[in-house]
């Protein structure tokens, strides 16, 4: 108990220490949290009328962002899996970083869902026992279960691994017998949350462009691109600014995954586009609207083609080894483009235009309001703040700067 307390204390005090740039970053996030607290207050007192959502386009940016967080959270297993499934030495210690990303992004996603709900104060209605969960029928009930289980699995993994490292008992035989199944379960659970999230969307026959079997594949390939893109950015930052050793081989593996995933995304998009547009049935209306507009409504056209150019361009760029090995310039740029492209794809291509035409033939455009926009930033800021702090503390433990045996720290820093 005493050890646990000192673990928490050491972890926390290390996490909040840093240089000027570190504090500037925290301040930057703090700004959005400050503004967002006010906008969130407005939303929770006035209702979702402060967002741009309507009965025609009923999902707002929150739900779109939730899908994106599910992308990243699912992709975090790509950092965990190589270490545990393929026994790659260079990645085994980094697994905890993957689990931290998964944990934080699932939590962020759940926060987005709370913002999406009309009555977040009634969340307890879905808890079995005190409420009622429509379990075998509702896809959202499944999603609630898998997201929360994934969150718990990753929390166990993160805390246990960091704690073991902290007390210096990290060798394979020193880990508890229950731990390995948890890690493997978490690895399997990553794609699962994503498939279930895809089914939450695909289960709605009303929305033709989601009512397709490729949706889980599209989601998984987008996860495979956006998640590692973020993780490469994180690794490059960590490598530059901390003592943690991350080999080029790790980054190369992530780059390969991004390239493959982008290729699959292009295939999936092309297949879906062909299947809809060639026969030209009514199911193509929504895609046609997204790609070319409808009778003067063409808000999404530029977003669609912008995202397509970004994805294809990034894919082509990653075919060149010169780009792949440009660790401090081109690679981070490409990763950033991939991340942003898939982030904007969610609301502007996947979610909003899918609602048009409505079952009664209406076409509508979604206009994000400022309050909604700052609420999205609010949740992102909270997510990135937690990610920063937890990663910082974890790096302290992984590099050995934070450990239970204080004398060891002293001798190391002395050396």
């Amino acid at each position, binding site marked *: 108990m005493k050890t646990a307390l000192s673990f928490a204390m050491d972890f926390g005090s290390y996490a909040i220490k840093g240089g000027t740039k570190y504090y500037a970053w925290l301040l930057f996030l703090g700004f959005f949290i400050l503004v967002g607290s006010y906008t969130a*207050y407005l939303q*929770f*007192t*006035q*209702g*979702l*009328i*402060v*967002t741009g*959502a*309507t*009965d*025609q386009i*009923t*999902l707002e940016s929150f739900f779109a962002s939730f899908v994106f967080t599910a992308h990243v959270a699912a992709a975090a297993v790509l950092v965990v899996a190589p270490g545990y499934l393929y026994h790659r030495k260079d990645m085994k210690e980094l697994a905890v970083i993957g689990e931290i990303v998964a944990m934080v992004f699932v939590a962020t996603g759940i926060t987005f*869902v709370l913002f*999406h*709900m*009309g*009555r*977040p*104060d*009634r*969340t307890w*209605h*879905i808890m079995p026992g005190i*409420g*009622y*969960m*429509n379990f075998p*029928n*509702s*896809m*959202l*009930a499944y999603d*609630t279960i898998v997201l929360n289980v994934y969150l718990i699995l990753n929390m166990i993994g993160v805390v246990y691994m960091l704690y073991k490292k902290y007390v210096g008992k990290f060798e394979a035989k020193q880990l508890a017998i229950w731990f390995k199944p948890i890690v493997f379960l978490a690895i399997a659970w990553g794609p699962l949350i994503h498939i279930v999230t895809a089914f*939450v969307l695909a*289960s*709605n*026959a*009303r*929305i033709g462009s989601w009512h397709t079997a490729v949706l889980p594949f599209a989601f998984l390939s987008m996860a495979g691109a956006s998640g590692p893109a973020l993780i490469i950015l994180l690794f490059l930052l960590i490598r530059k600014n901390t003592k943690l050793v991350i080999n080029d081989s790790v980054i190369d593996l992530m780059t390969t995954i991004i390239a493959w995933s982008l290729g699959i995304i292009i295939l999936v998009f092309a297949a879906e586009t062909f299947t809809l547009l060639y026969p030209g049935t*009514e199911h193509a*209306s929504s895609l046609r609207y997204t790609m070319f507009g409808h009778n003067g409504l063409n808000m999404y056209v530029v977003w669609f083609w912008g995202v397509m150019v970004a994805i294809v361009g990034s894919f082509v760029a990653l075919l060149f080894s010169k780009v792949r090995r440009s660790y401090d310039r081109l690679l981070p740029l490409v990763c950033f483009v991939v991340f942003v492209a898939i982030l904007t794809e969610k609301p502007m291509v996947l979610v909003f235009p899918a609602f048009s*035409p*409505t*079952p*009664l*033939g*209406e076409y509508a455009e979604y206009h994000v309001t400022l309050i909604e926009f700052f609420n999205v930033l609010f949740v992102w800021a909270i997510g990135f703040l937690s990610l920063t702090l937890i990663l910082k503390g974890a790096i302290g433990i992984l590099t050995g700067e934070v450990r239970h045996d204080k004398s060891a720290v002293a001798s190391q820093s002395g050396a």
Partner: protein
Amino acid sequence: MSEEKIIDLKDEDELRQGRRDFLKHVCTSSAAALVLTTTPSEAVDSASNPDADATVAEYFQGHFLLMSEEEKLKAIARLEKRYSAKYMKKTTVANTPAPDGVLFGYALDIGKCIGCRRCVHACVKENNQSRNDPEVQWIQVMKMPKGNIAFTADQLDKGYPEKSEFGDYGVQVGGNAYKTAGLSTEDAQNYYNDELVPDKDFFYMPVQCQQCEKPPCVKACPVRATFRDHAGVVLIDYNWCIGCRMCQLACPYHARRFNWGEPNLPAEEMNPKTHYFGNRPRMRGVMEKCTFCAQRTREGRNPACQEACPVGARKFGNLLDPNSDVRQVLATKRVFRFKEEAGTYPKFFYYIG
């Protein structure tokens, strides 16, 4: 079903019994504090409302269908008290059960419908929807082009591929190919604002909740706040809905409406005869939709939209009774269901009489 039953709607004394002493054992100040921290709006309500405990009790009430009879009466008494105070008139909240041996069905003659939208606004007068900001309407009328204005001779040589050595015009892509005619939502106008109706080149199709036998919304609701009663009507417990809008996503008829903000219902327009699952005033952040006027039809009277229709295009009745209006329509007219391909088996039939 006598006249008295229709007009004199409910034995109210029954409901009054549960009102006494129910506040004492339900709430504590700590429960109140929890509500205050979770929802600022509730906090405002309970601060201005001397009966804050009732608000807390309402917050912690369970699913209405899972309540005991006593709890139901208490919940209803709470609501009646709150509504009566808020709208400054005596409001009743009925809990009339759905009649036994009845399956409610609806038939609408799109041959007769003239698109006057009286059903839409009669529904609003009856069902206490938010009047503005957000303006909520449960029925939406589509105006669809008849075939007579679709095809034109000057379009014959338009499109692609052009006239070729084969002499024909090939598969028309463009030209007359891009013409919708008949029952298609593709070129439907939902916001038509004509001086006079009906427009001779168009026909009209009102759409409201189709009361599906296999409702996708009920399947999608994560908390079973929406369900089908034994008379076949899909209802919502507004106090149980969490506002996740999965039902709205699932509905292939665009029948469900969401209270995006605090409903704006002027006291003088409020209809004080309500039903728990029907037209009682809703709160912000919950779903609502057509209930076939539960407060009326469960007591024998026709829905408001049926009564408002000036051309008698709307027929309502019991699908299990071979002599009912609806069954007579099914027996003698050519009926169809809207979006049959959605596999929802609506009990709302359209016909061309």
